[in-house]
């Protein structure tokens, strides 16, 4: 290929390596999809995804037969893994919308090469998240009862409940993310339609591209649409995790009932989301040789966002025990004390070390510029954020007001199978995505090239 002379080391300071042209950018990204030779890495990744997906399907199959009792849900801990995983997955999704919408509004051009797969990550993470509240219903096949619709039972959802708000927030979020992603894909689908030699692929991409032809009239409307969708997605993404946090704060359980949960949850969501972006981008760019497009600068910027949101999360942890102490409420005191010294102390101190201590290494440029170390730290953060939700949910429920009803949550193998299974679902969808659709937005990367600038004549 023509881009052999591109030196990834020069690219460490820029958001796109020098030497690319419109043609080579297009070819390099489109070839990943249009090639007949699929790398072994892809087959390996998809196989892991399929195996874990089968684990998920067996766990769900058993759940349909036997009910939620196969999980470790026992009074008083009725939320357990399901809600932990729900909050974890939906938080991961938030980084995709942050990159695609908020950074677009802030005119951060480095987002152009990572927004596509980050948005795909959002969609698939929201799909995984959506599984849990539905499976947790007890009778998952009646999930449509969550929506208000005219029915012969004459009953309706209670709109005063944060759980119903959550249904609307998450389903709106999934729909808007899908629309935003599709609108972003249209010009690239047209590129694939024009570049492929396979009749079936040309037909499929042609239908999906809707006849996009790059008309200036269309681009002008398209740019308005992107900005408007970004403007709509920005408050939406902030609202989604706020509403998720309302599931907790509106309840009066000690350790949940506090006003700083919304910003704390949003920061934690973006923190874990950027960790997932790094965990996906680092292996992908290595395998597909995309270091010229996803440069060290992108990794460094993502690491900086991770550090910043990690510090907000650390501050929130401190506020959590400060406000518990400041309320002078004995139940709040007990809840925090139990978290730190009670049966969940191992999980608690692990989450503190994962989420507060580990990101401190990201202050150092030497560490931020080493992809292997960044990958490691993002995995640590993902584990830490999962533990955080686990501790918030389980430790607060296990030991609430009445010591006689206290009971310790024991995860069963089906809890683990369902959780690991959704990771399989995520990998399965994600590997299909990188094989079938361009994982980097081709047209937006074209705009990053120096030759995309129109040189104005003097005096014009």
């Amino acid at each position, binding site marked *: 290929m023509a881009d052999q002379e591109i030196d990834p080391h020069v690219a460490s300071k820029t958001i796109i390596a020098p030497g690319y042209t419109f043609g080579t950018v297009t070819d390099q990204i489109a070839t990943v999809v249009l090639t007949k030779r699929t790398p072994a890495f892809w087959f390996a990744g998809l196989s892991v995804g399929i195996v874990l997906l089968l684990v998920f399907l067996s766990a769900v199959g058993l759940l349909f037969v036997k009910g939620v009792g196969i999980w470790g849900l026992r009074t008083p801990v009725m939320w357990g893994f399901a809600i932990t995983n729900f909050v974890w997955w939906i938080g991961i999704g938030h980084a995709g919308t942050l990159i695609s919408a908020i950074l677009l509004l802030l005119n951060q051009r480095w987002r152009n090469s990572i927004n596509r797969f980050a948005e795909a990550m959002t969609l698939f993470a929201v799909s995984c998240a959506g599984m849990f509240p539905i499976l947790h219903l007890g009778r998952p096949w009646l999930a449509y009862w969550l929506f208000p619709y005219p029915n012969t039972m004459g009953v309706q959802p209670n*709109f005063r409940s944060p759980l119903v708000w959550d249904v609307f927030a998450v389903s709106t979020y999934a729909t808007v993310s899908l629309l935003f992603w*599709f609108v972003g894909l249209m010009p690239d689908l047209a590129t694939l339609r024009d570049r492929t030699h396979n009749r079936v692929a040309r037909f499929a991409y042609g239908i999906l591209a809707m006849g996009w032809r790059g008309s200036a009239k*269309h681009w002008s409307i398209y740019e308005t649409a992107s900005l408007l969708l970004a403007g709509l997605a920005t408050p939406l993404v902030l609202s989604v995790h706020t509403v998720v946090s309302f599931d907790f704060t509106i309840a009066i359980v000690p350790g949940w009932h506090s006003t700083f949960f919304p910003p704390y949850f949003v920061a934690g969501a973006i923190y874990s989301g950027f960790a997932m972006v790094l965990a996906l981008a680092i292996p992908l760019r290595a395998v597909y040789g995309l270091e010229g497009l996803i440069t060290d600068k992108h990794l460094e910027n993502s690491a900086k966002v991770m550090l910043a949101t990690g510090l907000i999360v650390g501050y929130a942890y401190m506020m959590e025990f400060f406000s518990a102490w400041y309320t002078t409420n004995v139940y709040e005191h007990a809840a925090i004390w139990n978290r730190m010294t009670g049966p969940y102390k191992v999980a608690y101190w692990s989450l503190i070390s994962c989420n507060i201590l580990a990101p401190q290494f990201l202050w150092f440029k030497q560490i931020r510029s080493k992809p292997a170390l960044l990958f490691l730290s993002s995995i640590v953060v993902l584990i830490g954020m999962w533990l955080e939700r686990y501790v918030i949910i389980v430790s607060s429920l296990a030991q609430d007001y009445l010591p006689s009803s206290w009971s310790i949550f024991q995860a069963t193998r089906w809890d683990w199978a369902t959780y690991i299974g959704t990771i399989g679902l995520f990998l399965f969808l994600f590997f299909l995505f990188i094989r079938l659709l361009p994982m980097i937005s081709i047209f937006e990367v074209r705009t990053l090239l120096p030759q995309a600038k129109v040189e104005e004549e003097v005096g014009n």
Partner: protein
Amino acid sequence: MNKPVYGLIAEFENPTALVAAARAAREKGYRRLDAYTPFPIEELTDALHLHHNKLSLIVLMGGILGGIAGYLLQYYVTVIYFPINIAGRPLHSWPSYIIITFEMTILFAAISCVLGLLGLCGLPMPYHPTFNVPRFALASRNRFFLCIEARDPLFDIKQTCAFLETLEPREVSEVAP
């Protein structure tokens, strides 16, 4: 009688040449113009005077409609259709309605944005005359096209072709309808 054409299309190597050509064509008096590019070019929007579109208005209307629908849905269900007393709260407990009203506003606005985009662009449109030009496939890769359509009052196949040639394109071709 000449065989009918959709227009004439000129191919350029870079955005600067295309924008200059679009300006020149506007100055010459051509109005039925369109350009085809692999990415959005802001200067081209200026050159072709494409600034106004109704999308913002459509999205605003969609958002307002969604907000009203969301609020009324909750009001109707909690006050009229299925009134239940929960902890002595008033039936019309509007602070609880804020979230869903907001979500429905965003949902309707986003859907109307995408439908508005497709509607204003006339998409989906599987067939368009420009696709008949063999080199037009490069409009989604690395080439920049300017098309003067036959319905332009100044359009004359010979003169327009001669004019396009003066803009130093890579190639000028006829577009079959």
